[in-house]
């Protein structure tokens, strides 16, 4: 009888909406292993890859990025520009939170206000002045100035359940409190609109999820009913867990094991060129020679990005000559790595440094993929143009204080733009350091070109996409010509799964797998 009934239901479902059938039978198991588990359930406590991955599982954003960096409606079914500073959003109707409450503009407003209080997220929402409720399912997002990245920021709005997060917890603290220091209500409880509900969680051991029965997106092909997320920090152990069949899906995959996974007949490997740029900054305040554009260019000519990507990164990186990866507005197609030792030597001679000089260099040794080996390679390459490098690599916990003190002449940093936009790179890495505005916070090179800064500022209030792209590209070109820093590569991303887990369609360059849409055969 039961089988008959199921057959009948799936028939109806097939006839009605072809996709709905699979959504109704979310009964597959998925065991996945990341290198870390989410620090907290409060999606506003920390801005990190891990938390955003969690956000996409337990919550839903207003809009989200597609694979080709376009916007896709989620909880907001449509939006339109009202004026220069205002965008009107229309929410989907009848969307339920895990608590059973219904989503309304009030919840979005609550979330927006909470984001502005969060230490990590407030910077992204700094350009916004207000969120105005029009009715239950309509609201306006208003910026202080015309702001071209309004929609980029909207991908960070994952509406939280206002009723659920209101009132006091058993320790007498407000339930909506955001704090890194104390155990808050929100860090232990969640009520979002997302495809998965957290059923149990042991920090550092595992998190268990189950599919939300009333999930609004009936068109989602996702058929995973239960997920166990285990953090496995050791690369080797994570790969072994997949190869031995202990888990179905792992990320990240270390470059040394790519071949091993490709060779295995039971696993699939997906790699993608990433958006995290790795660069070296040359401190002009500490080294007189770095003030000379020709010396910086000489260094840029001396570095063999292709070689590093091929030999050290084992092809697991895209050689870079600029900050903006492909698909970003500032990306300039023509900029290619300019490796040419003869030209580099010539420039050094021209600048009067034929005999070279000695500098210090620092890099982390456990932050980016192969960071210490890359630094050694760069040091060796600089030796060929007579720049002697005194290299020190440190664990990340010790590296960042040194970075803040600008403790070496050349320092490594990797950067991912939270807004998925070129301007973010310039604001943090190349604009003239200014402690009042916070510009150039990670510009350890102290490079300063007011003209380019002005362009960035103009671009930040230009809402015309094409005009803005032109401005950003001009900045990128200017930085290249000035050899403001030494770009190395964009770190690739890699995921691996068992053959029956179809991860390819749900992966993207932001590294937020949309697990809700995952299909397991």
């Amino acid at each position, binding site marked *: 009888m039961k089988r008959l009934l199921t057959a009948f239901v799936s028939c109806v479902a097939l006839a009605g909406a072809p996709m709905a059938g699979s959504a109704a039978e979310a009964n597959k198991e998925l065991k996945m292993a990341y290198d870390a588990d989410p620090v907290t359930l409060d999606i506003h406590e920390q801005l990190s890859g891990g938390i955003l991955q969690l956000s996409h599982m337990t919550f839903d954003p207003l809009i989200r990025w597609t694979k080709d960096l376009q916007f896709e409606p989620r909880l907001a079914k449509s939006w339109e520009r009202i004026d220069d500073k205002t965008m009107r959003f229309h929410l989907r109707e009848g969307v339920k939170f895990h608590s059973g409450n219904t989503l309304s503009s009030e919840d979005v407003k609550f979330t927006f206000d909470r984001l502005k209080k969060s230490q990590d997220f407030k*910077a992204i929402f700094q350009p916004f002045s207000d969120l105005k409720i029009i009715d239950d399912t309509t609201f306006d997002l208003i910026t202080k100035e015309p702001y071209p990245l309004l929609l980029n920021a909207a991908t960070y709005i994952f509406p939280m359940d206002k009723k659920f997060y209101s009132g006091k917890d058993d320790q007498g603290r407000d339930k909506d409190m955001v704090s890194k220091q104390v155990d808050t209500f929100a860090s232990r409880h969640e009520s979002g609109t997302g495809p998965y509900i957290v059923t149990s969680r042991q920090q550092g*051991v595992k998190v268990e999820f189950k599919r939300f029965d009333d999930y609004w997106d009936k068109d989602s092909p996702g058929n995973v009913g239960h997920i166990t997320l285990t953090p*496995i920090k050791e690369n080797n152990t994570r790969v072994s867990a997949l190869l*031995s069949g202990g888990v179905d899906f792992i990320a990240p995959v270390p470059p040394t094991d790519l071949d091993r996974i490709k060779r295995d007949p039971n696993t699939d490997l997906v790699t993608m060129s990433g958006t995290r740029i790795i660069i070296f900054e040359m401190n002009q305040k500490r080294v007189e020679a770095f003030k000379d554009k020709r010396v910086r260019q000489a260094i840029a000519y001396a570095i063999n990005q292709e070689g590093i990507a091929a030999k050290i990164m084992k092809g697991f990186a895209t050689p870079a000559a600029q900050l903006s990866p492909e698909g970003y507005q500032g990306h300039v197609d023509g900029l290619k790595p300019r490796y040419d030792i003869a030209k580099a030597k010539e420039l050094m001679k021209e600048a009067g440094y034929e005999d070279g000089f000695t500098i210090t260099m620092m890099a982390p040794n456990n932050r980016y993929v192969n960071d210490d080996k890359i630094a050694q390679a760069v040091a060796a390459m600089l030796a060929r143009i007579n720049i002697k490098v005194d290299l020190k690599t440190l664990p*990340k916990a010790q590296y960042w204080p040194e970075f803040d003190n600008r403790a070496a002449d050349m320092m490594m940093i990797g950067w991912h733009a939270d807004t998925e936009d070129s301007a973010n790179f310039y604001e943090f890495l190349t604009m003239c350091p200014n402690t009042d505005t916070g510009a150039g916070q990670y510009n350890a090179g102290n490079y300063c070109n007011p003209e380019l800064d002005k362009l960035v500022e103009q671009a930040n209030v230009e809402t015309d996409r094409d005009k803005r792209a032109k401005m950003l590209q001009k900045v990128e070109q200017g930085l290249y010509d000035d050899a403001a820093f030494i770009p190395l590569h964009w770190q690739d991303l890699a995921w691996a799964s068992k053959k029956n887990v179809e991860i390819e369609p749900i992966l993207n360059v932001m590294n937020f797998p949309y697990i809700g849409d995952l299909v397991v055969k």
Partner: protein
Amino acid sequence: MLAFLVQRIGQAILVMFVISVISFAIQDGLGDPLRQMVGQSVSDAEREQLREDLGLNDPIVVQYARFATNAVQGDLGNSYFYGEPTLDVIMDHLPATLELVIAASLMIIFLSIPIGVYAAIRPRAWLSKFFMGVSTVGISIPVFLTAIVLIQLFSIGVTVDWFPADTGWGQWLNDVFSTDGGMPSYGRGQELTHLFGTWDSNFFSWDGLLHLLLPAVSLASIMLPLFIRLIRAEMMEVLQSDYIRYAQAKGISPWRINFLHALKNTMLPVITVGGVQIGIMVAYTILTETVFQWPGVGLMFLEAITRSDIPLIVAYLMVVGLIFVITNTVVDLVYGLVNPTVKLTGKKA
């Protein structure tokens, strides 16, 4: 006895005090905990505020005084990362580590004694030589390598094609050297039995035991050879002594001589070494737990270091210090039971 215990408690307090001072003194070298707590684009001012809130801007002496005042009341501070009292975090993770140590210790006890005794009684037997050979290899392979090899062999499995597969014997040899894999390679598994408090046990389900096996074997692999060799050497010496020869002349059964008279005296130095080694084993769990993602205090400690979670690091070191003191005390007591001629310090003669 009482005086002995009081003296040991005094020592324990001293040890904890020294550990806490040392770990406080080196905390600057452990890096900046804030970097691990906030996103990269958080402004300097925000970070400075958080630093102030955490009391990290106070002079180190003030910070230590605050820590010590709370510590004597049993409060070792809150972990930055977990946001919970450090002792709670450690108690959550400690059972996993203790089970691993217990499992490894059991393996060592039940393997090293028979093998060691056998190797001492029949030093020329080929099996003895085999055990001695394997133990030499075992003692010289680092524990993480053992762990990785175990995972490859028994979790992932290897297919061997060294021999011609078209011949019967080749195929047979290939099969002998190939392994299927399938053993769990990480974590404690799903089927844990709740005992009490934070203690969930792996010992009471088949799945739990399977998960425990590989980590315990690799942890035991460092100590096992040592104990086999120790027991063999001691036993051989004891077997030479007059009272054994006398017993043999008297016609007492060899079994009784070997396992009752000889073994008892063999065990004295073994217990001494064992006590120290259990402490060292707790330290080795850091490596084993990392490779097997075993959620115990070793893994927790290693992660605390990468996160510069200073309160947790300090608390871990103090708890491990305490464990060392306790095991040594217990060993001294047991020693007194096995050999009544040994006097405990502090005990009146």
